[in-house]
């Protein structure tokens, strides 16, 4: 199953926090915020796809629709 997506999300999270700190040190505060937003959007995309898969599966199993 999609175990790799978990570690992808963790990797993006750690990378974004490092980049955020680095950009803040370099004095580019706005770039840091934009970069965090971009990382957040990417991770949100993966998580929403995963949730969509979960909800369709649950509907299939429990005949919820």
């Amino acid at each position: 199953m999609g175990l790799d997506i978990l570690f992808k999300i963790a990797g993006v999270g750690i990378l974004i926090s490092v980049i955020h700190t680095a950009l803040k040190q370099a004095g580019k505060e706005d770039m840091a915020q934009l970069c965090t937003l971009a990382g957040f959007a990417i991770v949100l995309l993966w998580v929403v796809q995963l949730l969509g898969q979960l909800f369709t599966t649950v509907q299939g199993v429990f005949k919820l629709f």
Partner: protein
Amino acid sequence: MEIVQIVGLGFIVTLLILIIRTQKPEFAVQLSLALATIIFLLVLGKINLVIGLIRDLADKANVSQMYLNTILKIIGIAYITEFGAQVCRDAGEGAVAGKIEFAGKVLVMVLAIPIIALVLETIVKLLP
């Protein structure tokens, strides 16, 4: 043996969440949401087997499908409500979790009404 995999995965990702939570709490919430989803998808096959068995037993006991479907729907709604409320509570939003649980209770009640009506009718018929 899957339980060992699941517990191991849970530990690893929990540690990752702890690392990320200090810097970026929003990523930590998304990671825990993804972990909860994946663990459920892993276990889903087993749930399917159990439901299939219950359905066979119901057919043998010629219990009408309506009851079983309602029960399965209620279980599904209860599970999703619990899933959403727990994730919201982890993220620190107790009020939102409370609202989700309230909505879940209302939906389950709405589903249970036909069966309650049926039970009452049967009781009334029994009375002399």
